[in-house]
């Protein structure tokens, strides 16, 4: 069998595999065939690891025959190309690392492999996860499966495109200012930015270490929960890793959401970053769905989106420059123009300004904590509107436009984006749910219930 009647979610595939109605080899072959057919347009993959994938799928089928179980056993996934993979080229979508072959897996990759997941390949990103889509690199930028003329969102752009197009059942992304949740929103999938410290970052090429997080992207919140069950956990070799208690994320999804207090960040999208009429309508519908589910929804307030972005941009720019200073000095012309324009200003940021940003971050975390005493979940759109055209994604002004998603990075809270609706043109819109630190279980559960009632998950991109 080289075709699938429908692309299963991870949860559905796990049930089919457990019931022996599907083998991992069949599933992996079908997805490899889809990659071959669709990826020449979408450019989601920088590298397809076909042979190792087939070998891993056969091994997973043998392990299952021998009695092994597991929600990810034999599930085909793909990883953003800043995740180090032993023996497999890891480029960060950069000419500078075009020949880079790590000797060790990132801890997250190791955990997924140990759980029996099958790696299909490595996914497109913005160069070193910053800058924007670039056309002056050895590999083209990924394209949006809902409309290949449009931007996927970034920087986990290949992860968004691959999951949305059904080329992989789940993916790893990373999120420093919105890089998991922006592509999740524009590509109509689910993406989780965890609390800092919950998921190990060892072996993930850093961008701005004080804001970087690693996390899952998949078709549904349920699939993100299944992935997080394996990804979360203390890693003694990552100094920022936290030994936090881990509830069963997938097992907790079915519990009711009645009584959850949802705060609506109305000012964010009506005033700070004015959203399109269709996005506002999506928010109204989301509020109605959550009320039907028995949640209370009231307006919540936080400092302006711009305040969070002032902190986030200064920290990202300064830390990204510091990460790359040595190579910027010697090999500047090998970076993409988009990267250069975005990271070079970091040379100008003084320590006093950097520390002012870190001080202000303390304030903003306190403001978030105060608001979260009254609410369990905060609700906002992930973006002001649907995916822009790829050609319109100019990098000149990119740094001046604030991101709604950066709020959660600066405030150090977990944040889930799920598909909240579609525009009349058929482009997805993302709904963002923020929770209290280490309360991923709450937003995953609410996202899951929302998806069930909103009923948008049967709609796949045209042509897939």
């Amino acid at each position, binding site marked *: 069998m080289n075709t699938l009647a429908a692309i299963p979610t991870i949860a559905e595939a796990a049930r089919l595999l457990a019931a022996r109605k599907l083998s991992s080899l069949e599933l992996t072959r079908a997805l490899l065939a889809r990659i071959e057919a669709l990826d020449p347009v979408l450019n989601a993959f920088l590298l397809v690891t076909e042979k190792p994938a087939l070998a891993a799928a056969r091994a997973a089928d043998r392990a299952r025959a021998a009695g092994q179980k597991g929600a990810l056993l034999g599930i085909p996934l793909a990883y953003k190309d800043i995740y180090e993979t032993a023996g497999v080229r890891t480029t960060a979508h950069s000419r500078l690392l075009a020949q880079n072959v790590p000797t060790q897996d990132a801890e997250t990759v190791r955990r997924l492999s140990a759980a029996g997941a099958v790696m299909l390949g490595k996914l497109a990103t913005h160069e070193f996860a910053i800058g924007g889509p670039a056309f002056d690199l050895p590999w083209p930028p990924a394209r949006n499966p809902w409309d290949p003329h449009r931007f996927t969102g970034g920087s986990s752009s290949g992860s968004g495109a691959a999951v949305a197009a059904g080329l992989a059942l789940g993916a790893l992304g990373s999120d420093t200012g919105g890089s998991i949740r922006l592509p999740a929103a524009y590509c109509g999938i689910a993406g989780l930015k965890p609390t800092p410290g919950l998921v190990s970052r060892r072996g993930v090429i850093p961008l701005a270490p004080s804001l970087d997080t690693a996390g899952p992207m998949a078709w549904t919140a349920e699939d993100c929960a299944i992935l997080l069950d394996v990804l979360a956990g203390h890693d003694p070799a990552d100094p920022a890793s*936290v030994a936090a208690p881990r509830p069963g994320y997938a097992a907790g999804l079915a519990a009711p959401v009645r009584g959850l207090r949802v705060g609506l960040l109305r000012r964010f999208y009506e005033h700070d970053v004015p959203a399109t009429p269709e996005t506002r309508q999506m928010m109204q519908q989301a509020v109605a769905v959550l009320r039907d589910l028995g949640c209370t929804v009231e307006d919540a307030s936080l400092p302006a989106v711009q305040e969070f972005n002032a902190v986030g941009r200064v920290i990202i720019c300064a830390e990204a420059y510091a990460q790359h200073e040595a190579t910027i000095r010697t090999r500047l012309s090998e970076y993409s123009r988009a990267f250069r324009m975005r990271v070079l200003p970091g040379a100008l940021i003084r320590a006093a300004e950097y520390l002012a940003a*870190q001080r202000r971050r303390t304030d903003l975390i306190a403001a978030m904590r105060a608001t979260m005493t009254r609410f369990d979940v905060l609700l906002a759109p992930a973006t002001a509107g649907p995916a822009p055209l790829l050609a319109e994604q100019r990098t000149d002004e990119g740094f001046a436009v604030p991101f709604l998603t950066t709020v959660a990075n600066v405030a150090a809270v977990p944040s889930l984006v799920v598909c909240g609706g579609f525009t009349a043109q058929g482009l997805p819109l993302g709904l963002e749910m923020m929770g209290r630190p280490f309360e991923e279980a709450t937003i995953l559960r609410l996202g899951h219930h929302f998806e069930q009632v909103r009923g948008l998950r049967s709609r796949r991109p045209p042509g897939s």
Partner: protein
Amino acid sequence: MSLDAATVRRIASLARIAVAEEELPRLAGELNSILGWIEQLNEVNVDAVAPMTGAVALALPMREDRVTDGAQAEAILANAPDRAGEYFAVPKVVE
């Protein structure tokens, strides 16, 4: 505050970064937007706020409690020319 291409050229040269002439205007735009964010930061008084050292409350993880090869002070000091309690004693080197 706003930077022009000439200023950016000078900053780049001071920072020992070779920037192509045609990229200067766009880089000036990016620099101005980061300066805008810095100005916005400076509007808030944070004198009394401690700089962030960790975004989440971190407890130091404890190492696993198991038998190790350590705690052998006596064996280690057995050949020492001089000792003070569980420490090596050495001749005084500073008057």
